């Protein structure tokens, strides 16, 4: 199918035409394919008569979710839909597109729909559609990039038919779920679809800027199917007539799009007018787009300057991070991600590899959860091709993969996965023999990597070479070999480069001096993506300064915006005393108590004071004599109504800041961590409201309990599993709706059936003490404070 040959005229609205004919709508309009095929065929014919040469089947909502109450199966409805369209199209020599709208349910983590289930539902439609003779697979009116990715993968893995994807954007160029125009085009192009575009939502005029933006980031054929404006709520009539519509479509034709048609409100007259206007135009094949993009669904990076990859989501050498992963504390990881985003990272490296951990399960969960709180593109960091594939599959956007090296065994394992999911890849210039000393040998390895990438169909624009940093303290004369290699791989292969810089200073004092200088040298040599800690002001400052000096930050605009009216923290060089301690100024808040800080919700001050106290107080004493009593006071005031919810939470967070200082102190001294016991928390199956549970979590954690948070929409078996795995003695279940209290009861039954010796506390808006007893709970917690009282009773 050459989509740059001549303009393809699509059809107009199906729904609007069905309503016009008073078609008896059953549970879903797609049932008409079986109950009244003649009406559907008549509509198809009317569009073909008007000039359509690619018509869409009446199967928009014929998926398993929307058909679940129908008397017909998905296969029956889809097959009939394609059959009718084929019959109608045959005399005209026209093609048939299998129309697939959104599933209708909401994907995780915002809803309950699993990615794999969305995949299966689209697959079912695709198999039936292809078998019945569809010519093109069309995903239309899509709003969630991840959902449509499930569909595209289902298409690619089960069919050879061409794939079109059109999405529905609102004013501002984002879909209802936040997908950005550019991200949609970049991601879909990387997945290998045949046409991308826009449909529905607004009239042609409003959609034009979005199509222009798509054209900027992709060289794919473009498909456009706008509405005839908006319907009137009283009369149901659409604003725009056929001639106006055709006139407004002219700019798209001038732009050189490949397929045009109409969506809601457009009738055969509209298509007739459009088809006669389009006669005078041809599609325009754009120049090849060689920009290097990475994206999430909400943001994209066009690699033309230095972009920082945040390095902190990585357990290597970080005791607290390891512990968080083992306890399934995803919030800890989320916080690390948000802090790095706030610090100015533009891409986040994600590594969750730990011995004795299910890396694949954890990686997919972390990727999913991170994408709900940060909009930065991710760098999937693992050496296991299965882990990489699992993460790329559910990644919402175009990711970077970290990494391959010069070994064929590695390249042949990982590159096909990178290609299949349209990701970009980092190649390390090392092989079984380690890191070569000389730049020349590293360049040789880079050449091999680039060649293997090309062999697998990965374009140069998606290759990032890491020339690797050696430690200056050990291999001083090789420091410049790295810089030399960066210059050469850029010049010789046209690739981008990436480099982790902080190893350079290993073993040397005041590492920041060495690190920032090396970073600056590397950027000058052509480093595009440094991997570093974005919360380090000096390193970020070096990047920002480089952009000024290299004339990239024009007029120093960004630099000034960020640094004007700021002052540097004083850099002082203080010699250590004989004991190895630096003499620190006494804390200014010495006369205030931790209790006061916690009561006022002042986390920083509480943390400082705890730090000072640790010099001469046992950590456990600080917990038991300071932190917990302070929380008790706050809790009592909450119960009396002297303070209310936000204040309770602020105090809890202040206490958490104190706890964190103690945890870090213990981790540093290799002491066992303190925990007053483990508690499993979950919002039960079917319920996605988890604010209540999160409030309880904050409070419990800050009473010193380790909370294993299973999240929302948690099936009973998962709760049972977690209780077993962590030998937990107390479970907290939350449900907001009356409809989901039954799954709470189910979960309690499952826990009892498994014969687990644990207590269950329940809470939620619709629950009462009596009701809690009825469903078999041991405790009813009316608020977060009570949950802490219960924990104290059960766990001490």
């Amino acid at each position, binding site marked *: 199918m050459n989509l740059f040959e001549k303009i393809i005229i699509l059809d107009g609205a199906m729904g609007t035409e069905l309503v016009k004919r008073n078609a008896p*709508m059953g549970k879903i309009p797609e049932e008409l394919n079986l109950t009244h095929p003649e009406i559907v065929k008549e509509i198809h014919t009317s569009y073909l008569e008007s000039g359509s040469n690619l018509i869409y089947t009446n199967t928009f909502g014929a998926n398993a979710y929307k058909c679940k109450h129908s008397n017909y199966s998905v296969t029956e409805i889809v097959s009939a839909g394609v059959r009718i369209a084929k019959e109608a199209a045959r005399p005209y020599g026209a093609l048939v597109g299998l129309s697939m709208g*959104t599933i*209708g*349910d*909401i994907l995780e983590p*915002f*809803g*309950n*729909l699993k990615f794999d289930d969305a995949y299966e539902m689209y697959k079912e439609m695709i198999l039936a559609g292809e078998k019945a003779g569809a010519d093109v697979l069309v995903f239309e*009116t899509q*709003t969630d990039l991840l959902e449509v990715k499930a569909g595209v993968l289902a298409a690619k893995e089960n069919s050879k038919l061409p794939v079109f994807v059109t999405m*529905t954007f*609102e004013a501002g160029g984002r*879909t*209802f*779920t*936040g997908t950005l125009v550019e991200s949609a085009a970049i991601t879909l192009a990387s997945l290998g679809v045949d046409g991308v575009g826009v449909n*529905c*939502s607004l009239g042609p005029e409003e959609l034009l800027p979005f199509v222009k933006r798509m054209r900027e980031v992709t060289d794919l054929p473009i498909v456009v199917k706008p509405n005839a404006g908006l319907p009137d*709520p*009283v009369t*149901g009539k659409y604003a725009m007539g056929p001639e106006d519509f055709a006139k407004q479509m002219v700019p798209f034709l001038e732009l050189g799009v490949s397929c045009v048609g109409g969506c*809601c409100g457009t009738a055969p007259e509209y298509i007739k007018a459009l088809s006669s206007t389009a006669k005078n135009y041809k599609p325009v094949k754009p120049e090849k787009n060689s920009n290097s993009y990475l994206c999430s669904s909400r943001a994209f990076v066009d690699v033309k300057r230095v972009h920082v990859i945040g390095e902190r989501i990585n357990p290597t050498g970080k005791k607290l991070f390891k512990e968080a992963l083992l306890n399934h504390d995803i*919030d800890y990881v*989320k*916080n690390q991600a*948000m802090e790095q985003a706030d610090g100015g990272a533009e891409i986040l490296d994600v590594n969750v590899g730990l011995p004795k951990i299910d890396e694949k399960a954890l990686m997919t969960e972390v990727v999913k959860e991170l994408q*709900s*709180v940060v909009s930065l593109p991710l760098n999937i960091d693992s050496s296991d091709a299965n882990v990489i594939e699992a993460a790329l599959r559910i990644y919402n956007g175009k990711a970077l993969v970290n990494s391959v090296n010069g070994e064929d065994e590695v390249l042949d394992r990982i590159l096909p996965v990178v290609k299949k999911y349209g990701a970009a890849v980092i190649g390390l210039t090392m092989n079984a023999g380690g890191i070569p000393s000389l730049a020349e040998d590293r360049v040789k390895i880079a050449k091999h990597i680039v060649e293997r990438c090309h062999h697998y169909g990965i374009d140069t624009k998606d290759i990032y070479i890491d020339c690797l940093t050696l430690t200056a303290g050990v291999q001083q004369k090789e420091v410049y070999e790295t810089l030399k290699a960066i210059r050469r791989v850029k010049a010789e292969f046209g690739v981008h480069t990436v480099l982790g810089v902080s190893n350079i200073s290993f073993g040397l004092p005041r590492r920041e001096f060495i690190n920032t200088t090396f970073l600056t040298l590397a950027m000058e040599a052509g480093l595009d993506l440094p991997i570093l800690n974005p919360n380090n002001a000096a390193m970020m400052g070096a990047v920002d300064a480089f952009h000024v000096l290299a004339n990239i930050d024009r007029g120093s605009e960004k630099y000034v915006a960020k640094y004007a009216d700021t002052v540097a923290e004083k850099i002082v060089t203080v010699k250590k005393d004989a004991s190895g301690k630096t003499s620190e100024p006494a804390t200014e808040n010495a006369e205030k108590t931790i209790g006061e800080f916690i009561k*006022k*919700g002042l986390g920083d001050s509480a943390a400082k004071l705890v730090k000072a106290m640790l010099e001469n107080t046992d950590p456990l004493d600080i917990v038991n004599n300071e932190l917990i009593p302070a929380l008790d006071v706050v809790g009592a005031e909450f119960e009396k*109504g*002297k*303070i*209310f*919810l*936000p*204040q*309770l*939470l*602020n105090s*809890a*967070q202040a206490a958490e800041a104190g706890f964190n200082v103690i945890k870090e102190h213990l981790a540093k001294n290799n002491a066992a961590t303190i925990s007053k016991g483990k508690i499993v928390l979950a919002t039960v199956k*079917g*319920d*996605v*409201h988890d*604010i209540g549970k*999160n*409030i309880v979590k*904050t409070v419990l954690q800050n009473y010193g309990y380790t909370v294993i948070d299973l999240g929302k929409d948690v099936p009973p078996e998962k709760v049972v599993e977690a209780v077993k795995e962590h030998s937990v003695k107390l479970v907290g279940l939350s449900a907001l*709706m009356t*409809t*989901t209290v039954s799954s709470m009861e189910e979960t309690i039954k499952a826990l009892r059936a498994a014969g687990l010796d644990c207590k269950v506390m329940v809470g939620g808006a619709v629950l009462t003490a009596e009701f809690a007893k009825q469903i078999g709970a041991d405790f009813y917690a009316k608020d977060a404070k009570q949950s802490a009282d219960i924990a104290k009773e059960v766990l001490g």
Partner: protein
Amino acid sequence: MNIELDESDKKEILRYLGYRGTELTPKIEGDLLRAMDLANEIIRPGAVWKLFTLEYFEDGIGLKNTSCVLKGESIRKHLKEADRCALLCVTLGRDFDEEVERLMVKKPGFGVILNACGIQAVEKLADALQHEINERLAPQKTGVRFSPGYGDLPLETQGDFIRILNTEKTVGVRLNENYLMNPMKSVTAICGLYE
């Protein structure tokens, strides 16, 4: 259509937070103002409505030209034999849910305030839409909003409302199998029309 939270909404927001009239600290006062500003910034309002003629049957009240029948005594009492009704849906959009989600991890004390702002904002948005409907349909006016799950109007009715208003396409509101709306800060309702 858009709305802004302002001074006049403070009382309601505090009520949603369980505030019982003690003195507000400057920190909480400040957080409340910041949360309202943030809410105003991130709300991506969506609103859709349609007009229907009502048909009164033995077993329920029908919306003409649809398969939707409203069951139960409460809705019958509520509509007070109105001839027509407006069906409406408003939402604050996905961004709002995401920001609350982020804040509940980062700063839960502030997160709950923003969440309460959302509850107030979506009600205010529904009020604004009703105002718009009233202007369009004058001299008739919409009565008090009634939603699925109120009284004995089955929650399942939510499915009909969402389908009839085509909310997935028009404002991006979808329903899960337990009839929960997404985005979460969304309201659907029916209002009778009266002289």
